[in-house]
């Protein structure tokens, strides 16, 4: 049985010679083809060989040190401009919450008092350059609270009457007032600021009213695109609001917000628009009026003034504060000391840094005793 000892055996290890390219098809689907000598050779492109032309920036001293110096100088320059610009802006600010008994509005701060008015008197010893802006400010008022922010219905505010009957759920809990849909619904509208101000110049014992301009105090896009009154019904805005309730806290319905100017009513009331633009932070200011007309177009002249406030808005209950601000602006807006100072500080730090780097660099570039 010679055949039974017909083995396939190997010496050393089971290794063998195979110089040619493998051509095998595998169960696993692995395939190598043999079209020509170099079928599998990868393409010689800059991309595949990672030789793409490239710019290799380096943090060399020649760039970094002068860079810091330039940034520092530029920042200091801007800082000086900002600082001076800010210095020139005049601001007059007064808290009228009336917490202390010696403040003018103390009387009115009692929430039970209705239709209370108080007045703040002040004296300008220096011309207040125009245009002058009148702001009201609130503190500790969380217009930026998430729930406050969503509590409005943009469909309704864009005049879509379908949402007059069924306001959005996001307005909760100010959707219905005893079953009647509230328009405008939601906490944002409901909490609208409703103090009003009148400014008088006291000229020899008489009160000379300073004309306050309420036009154009809201964002152009808000006034022209976002907010729309519903289509008038029989030429009447009031009729368009038929079947709706006013927000709970409001004294008057939306179509009667401004009795003096019929076009400034409903959702197109600019005070309403200003209020509806949420503040980012709990302390905020909103523009109330501009002083741009009549004798005061160039600013408020030296003299005594009285600001008459009709005090309606309760803030003491939640620890809030109200204030009134008179201010003018420069090219970069209102008074903003922080920006100028920050630019100056950062600019100086950059220059200091560039000096430090220069010293370090010099020390390493030319070590003592080294050729």
């Amino acid at each position, binding site marked *: 049985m010679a055949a039974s000892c017909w083995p396939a055996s190997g010496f050393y290890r089971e290794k063998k010679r195979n110089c*040619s390219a*493998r051509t095998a098809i595998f169960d696993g689907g692995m395939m190598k083809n043999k079209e020509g000598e170099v079928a599998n050779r990868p393409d010689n492109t800059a991309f595949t060989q990672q030789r793409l032309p490239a710019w290799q920036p380096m943090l060399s001293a020649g760039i970094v040190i002068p860079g810091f110096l330039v940034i520092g100088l530029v920042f200091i320059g801007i800082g000086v401009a900002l600082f001076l610009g800010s210095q020139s802006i005049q601001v007059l600010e007064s808290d009228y919450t009336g917490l202390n008994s010696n403040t003018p509005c103390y009387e009115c701060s009692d929430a039970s008092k209705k239709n209370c008015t108080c007045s703040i008197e002040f004296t300008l010893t220096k011309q207040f350059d125009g245009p002058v802006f009148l702001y009201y400010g609130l503190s500790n008022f*969380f217009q*930026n609270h998430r729930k406050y922010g969503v509590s409005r219905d*943009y469909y309704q505010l*864009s005049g879509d009457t379908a949402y007059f009957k069924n306001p959005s759920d996001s307005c909760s809990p100010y959707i219905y007032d005893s079953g009647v849909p509230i328009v405008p619904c939601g906490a944002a509208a409901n909490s609208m600021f409703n103090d009003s101000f009148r400014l008088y110049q006291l000229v020899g014992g008489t009160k000379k009213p300073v004309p306050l301009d309420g036009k154009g105090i809201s964002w152009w896009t808000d006034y022209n695109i976002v907010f729309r009154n519903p289509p008038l019904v029989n030429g009447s805005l009031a009729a368009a609001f038929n079947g709706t309730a006013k927000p709970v806290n409001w004294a008057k319905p939306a179509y009667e917000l401004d009795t003096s100017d019929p076009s400034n009513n409903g959702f197109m009331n600019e005070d309403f628009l200003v209020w509806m633009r949420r503040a980012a932070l709990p302390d905020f200011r909103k523009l109330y009026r501009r002083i741009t007309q009549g004798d005061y177009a160039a600013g408020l002249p030296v003299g005594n003034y009285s600001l008459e406030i009709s005090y309606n808005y309760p803030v003491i209950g939640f620890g809030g504060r109200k204030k009134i601000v008179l201010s003018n602006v420069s090219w970069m807006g209102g008074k903003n000391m922080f920006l100028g100072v920050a630019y100056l500080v950062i600019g100086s730090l950059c220059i200091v840094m560039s000096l430090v780097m220069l010293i370090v660099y010099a020390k390493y570039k030319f070590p003592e005793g080294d050729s």
Partner: protein
Amino acid sequence: MLGTPILGQFGPFLFAAPFKLHQVGWCSAILRSLQSARRQGRRYLYTLNTAGLKTTKFGLSLECTVADNCIVTSKYNIITFLPVNLFEQFQEVANTYFLFLLILQLIPQISSLSWFTTIVPLVLVLSITAVKDATDDYFRHKSDNQVNNRQSQVLQNEKWMNVRVGDIIKLENNQFVAADLLLLSSTEPHGLCYIETAELDGETNMKVRQSLSVTSELGDPDKLAQFDGEVVCEPPNNKLDRFSGTLYWRDCKYPLSNQNMLLRGCVLRNTESCYGLVIFAGPDTKLMQNSGCTKFKRTSIDRLMNTLVLWIFGFLVCMGVILAIGNAVWERKAGSLFQNFLPWDPSVNNFLFSAFLSFWSYVIILNTVVPISLYVSVEVIRLGHSYFINWDRKMYCSHSNTAAEVRTTTLNEELGQVEYIFSDKTGTLTQNIMSFNKCSINGHAYGTCTMQKNKDFSSWNPLADGGLCFYDGSLLEAVKTGDLVAHEFFRLLSLCHTVMSEEKTEGALVYKAQSPDEGALVTAARNFGFVFCSRTPGTVTVHELGRPVTYTLLAILDFNNIRKRMSVIVRNPEGRIRLYCKGADTVLFDRLHPCNHELMNITTNHLNEYASDGLRTLALAYRDLTEDEWEEWAELYRGAGRTVDFREDRLAAAYEEIEQDMMLLGATAIEDKLQEGVPETIAILSLANIKIWVLTGDKQETAVNIGYSCKMLTDDMTEIFIINGHTVQGVREELRDAMKEEETQGLGKACSLGNGFSEKPKNPTSPTSLLESISGEFALVISGHSLAHALEADMEYEFVETVSVCKAVICCRVTPLQKALVIELIKRHKKAVTLAIGDGANDVSMIKTAHIGVGISGQEGIQAVLASDYSFAQFRFLQRLLLVHGRWSYLRMCRFLCYFFYKNFAFTMVHFWFGFFCGFSAQTVYDQYFITLYNIVYTSLPVLAMGIFDQDVPEQRSLEYPKLYEPGQLNLLFNKREFFICITQGIYTSVVLFFVPYSVLSHATQSNGIALADYQTFAVTTATALVIVVSVQIALDTGYWTAINHFFVWGSLGSYFTILFVLHSDILFSLFPQQFNFLGSAQNTLKQPVVWLTIALATVICIAPVLAFRFLKVELKPQLSDTVHTGSHRSGYAFAHQEGFGELITSGKNMRLSSLALATFFKEKDSTEMRG
């Protein structure tokens, strides 16, 4: 018998019908009565389970699973794809987490963000993954179909997938074997058939399989149809070279071995046709068992990332808790009083519940610290790096037409951290191309002057093979002049082997040898006029100096690792019987006739010479046998062959009997040439502080010689320890001696500490420890049997201690399992990244065990390649894979992760600060669309481009300065410390990004007097500042600005502004006023100079410190890459110095010199640092 075959109806192969009645499953283990089975007239297969019990594996019990031959590697079909794929994807923790967030967002009380902020990225991520899965599966379907639909002849022409266990299959020449078959009969005499196993183990030579003699007569279909044997066999397993089973037939039992099996994937060659009984089908076949699931490998960065993500979740919860407490306090102190304007939700009527909800709301908002895009981006980057490796022309071998191939795309950055390389020798370091180099015949050495060019043998021998690189005129002369010993020498070489010959065309002989050594020997004999022509089972035909001579082959005394020799017994035409033996000198010299003493001494000298040249040697001898001796021994031999138990042992004893008193003829020396560039590669890799171990099955001398020739070992080494003990005690002693020696050199301790970075993380780059580990040069050589002891639990620590001081370690005579164990040991004790490189089936275990497995393709089949993570054709490509691709991958991945965590912390933490100013109400700072798009549009591409294309130094530099590789090994670029630095930078940025706009905008007005402090302006300002700051930061981080980087960075900024203006446009508002209520914010805000001044201020405050810090770091504590990169910046000293040093390495000169050069370099570097 069921279903008597109806011949003619289906063609000639109908007999298999009964087999189709039952299939094997592997579930049941109930012993069934053979008799009852027989009564049913059915045939069964029986198997031996692992416990050795005889059990039926199928049978009548229908509950058993059926193994048909259909192979399904695909996972989905069109209908199941969506549900199954989604199910799989949601098994990923990250995806489930985001689904959970999505559900949270649908609860109105909690929802601080719209649902789409989560669902858009989630859907994006899921669909990218799904597309990838679908493509993969499509290709699997294609290959499945191709394989399953191959034709096979069973009952009638059947597709492969319909073949069942128990079927009898007819195979024809050049067909693939469809399943694991028991060979029943063949058209060739004696039931032989030839197969090629290339698909299985990559070996392309032919192998012989033989059927049992009892079944070999079953030549025709009728007889086969009557075949009712039963097979008891082992359960399916993945051992390709082993099969044990027994055939019960006609009340006799016949042992079955691998010799009787045809495995799936083989190809039938040189055989007209054969019949086989299907034993294992489909997934049970050895081929499929071998392709079993590979262990999923993860990189250390992966593991670190997972830890960090967990930490971040912890951080997230902490933030949530802090903000929830804040919410509780606020609601109680302020919120309750503020109810006049903002009443509490009726369902949320107390501050604690509100705090609880606020916690979840903040979890939703802050979840962007771990963006869903992280994992996808990481995968994309790795895929990019994989393509770069595939595309690398410098890793393409034109000789074998193979490009480098990345088989596991998820490991690339680990290539930059390798500390240990475990290399196979044969075929990896060497070419595995054997060339007959020298020989010693009858005490005369030939081939000493190898300078001669290949001479053409064909002038006198038309059958010569031109490929042989050996020529010695005097030897040729000796053969021509009729030196009888020389004739006998070559006659032995032409007779004593197992090579198969194939005459492709007239006169063109092709040898198919199982081992390249044999091929080389037979080819040498061929060129010297002893041309092996053909063989049959009983004869060997040799053209001896042009004259055909046919020898009767009486017996082959086969080779194995214990015998280390093989013999043949032949009868020449004159009737003389002679035994020819070749084998290892140590074994053979013991069995020589005493009269050979003198010749033996001379030959031994020659052998020693050869061995010291790193050649593989064999001694050759013969013995004349008389007819009586032969008859006597043949009886013994037949007796041994017939036994069933201990057959191997008894055969060995019989062989031993006859292989005595032999006459020495001489010795051969075969060279296994080193691959191109091996010494240089090893030198560069060891300069990169990578330790190289060679694990080989070769004997010690050969391994040590190779060690010298590839410059792993040098004569200048302080000490080369050789551990060769056979007992536990002996090995321990030797290890202790080695340790002591190391310590007396005064370096041992310091080195062992400095080597594993995990053990001494505090001072990982300490130049002194590095210096020492370089200057103290030890090497260790350990043999397989000593290694077995050294790997035992009580000694392994000692072993690790000893070897960690050694620069080079060579383990010889190791088994594949030991290779894996050694790697396991280092992985366990060193926490270092290991890489295994090999080319053969015996390297598979170590390739699978190591962190990274590299397969050398092209030489030895594809077993190793299939198991590997990377494959290429030449060992020298390893330096490019590690030092260029690995290094870049690591660098890029680290930079990517640092930036990624930074940008998300900068982005998200702004919400945290804002929480303190909005009543902890989970109000977001940004527009919800910005939150949705930030990670997937505005910031994803620049960082991806950096992660894919960045380069700190050009590729030539990383090869010139192997030390650049070190940060990866020491884990310096991304670790917990670096992570904290990035998130600190991120948090710092978020503070700046919140408080600068806060301070500027709170009372700012526009130049027309309108207040600028509204929420939308604030949101747009912060978001714009953020996008600009992170863009500037990525611009700083990007070291290599290609056009793509420019496009992505500027494109991202551009897309931000474009999308911003679109989202804030009238059109979208008029369609969806509730959703796009930021109308006009972009236009209003971005025309304010104050806003731009704010953004500029924030940018400078965020970036300037980083810039200054980086500049000073480069100045005060430069990394090697900075020095290399900037080059001339620092007096150019290191640069000039390194130039010469690079040349030293490539010149392949002494390693010692180069390491000295390196030491000087470090001293210099050190002293420059000291000056700081």
